[in-house]
């Protein structure tokens, strides 16, 4: 029963991802490994679309992954699964708001949780890095170091990094602008080689 499975998997994502939309990504890579519902490359594409469309990234990702897995109903079920733990936890917390904020154990737990969540996102970033900027398969065939990286993509990533982090006027641009420019660069310079 794909819908039940989808709901349950997404319920777990909602329950264990802490710190916003990006925190759901490591769970989705894990889901991809476990189920084969979608590939790592598809996931990177879905992330890009989720970032460039209205709505919270985590919700957009849930809808997209759900759709990819089981069509429009899958989209709905995955999204409900994602938000169900939030609703339950927040409704419980709302009753004991002040105690919750200042509880020693809650604070200590989050002290450990936050860096862990960051570590998981960083690890997911490495996976995306290998898909987007490297070509391990081709390297395995040719053993030529020049074939290990997608050089055009590496150049683009370096440019995006510089302009989105250090250059004054572009630093404040919305991420969508960079995604748009990157898409155009990909088409103009035939990034996928087709």
């Amino acid at each position, binding site marked *: 029963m794909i819908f039940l499975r989808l709901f349950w998997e997404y319920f777990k994502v909602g329950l264990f991802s802490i710190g916003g939309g*990006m925190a759901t990504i490591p769970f989705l890579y894990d889901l991809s490994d476990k189920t084969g519902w979608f590939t790592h490359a598809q996931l990177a594409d879905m992330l*890009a679309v989720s*970032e460039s469309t209205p709505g919270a990234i985590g919700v957009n990702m849930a809808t*997209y992954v759900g*759709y990819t897995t089981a069509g429009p109903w899958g989209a709905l079920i995955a999204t409900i699964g994602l938000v169900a733990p939030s609703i339950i936890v927040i409704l419980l917390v709302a009753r004991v708001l002040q105690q919750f904020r200042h509880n020693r154990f809650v604070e200590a737990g989050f002290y450990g*949780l*936050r860096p862990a969540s960051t570590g*998981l996102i960083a690890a997911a970033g490495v996976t995306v890095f290998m898909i987007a900027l490297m070509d391990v398969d081709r390297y395995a065939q040719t053993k030529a170091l020049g074939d290990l990286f997608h050089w055009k993509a590496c150049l683009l990533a370096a440019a995006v990094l510089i302009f989105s982090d250090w250059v004054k006027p572009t630093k404040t641009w919305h991420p969508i602008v960079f995604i748009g420019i990157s*898409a155009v660069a990909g088409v103009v310079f035939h990034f996928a080689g087709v």
Partner: protein
Amino acid sequence: MKELWELFLAFAKLGVMTFGGGAAMLPMLQREILEKRHWATEEELMDYYAIGQCTPGVIAVNTATFIGQKRKGVIGGIVATAGMVFPSLVIITILAGIITNISSLGWVQNAFAGIRACVVVQIFNAVIRLGKKSIVDKRTLVIFLVVFLGSILTNLSPVWFVLAAAVAGILLKQWEVKRT
């Protein structure tokens, strides 16, 4: 009923206007919920937002549930959340259908190859931003590194890392209390 409908509409509007996730949502929340509708005070909003960041799930959804439940109880929480996710459901479902149909075209593949390079940088930026807030001393740095390497090198589900880190945080803090 009218109030529930208003809740749904207000959060659907927020869902459309929020680009790029929870962090982008705060200024919108302040304008829509605080200034225009007076559904919460500034302090309440900051509390909800702070708790929304450190409880499970997507920040935008957590904040919506909070404000909804404050207005109309449990039903209000659910209705506000439904409003928040409604635009995503519609927009993404339509887009996903279109993209699936054109994904075999050469220029689409080229475009996504370019976009993926950009996504690498954006995840990197997110890690830096979150790291500044979450890696505050040597111990949190160790937790970060252990989870980062553990997640790359093993096939363990992220769930285990999250649970272990929460326990580690509590033990470390307990130990600190005992020592002083």
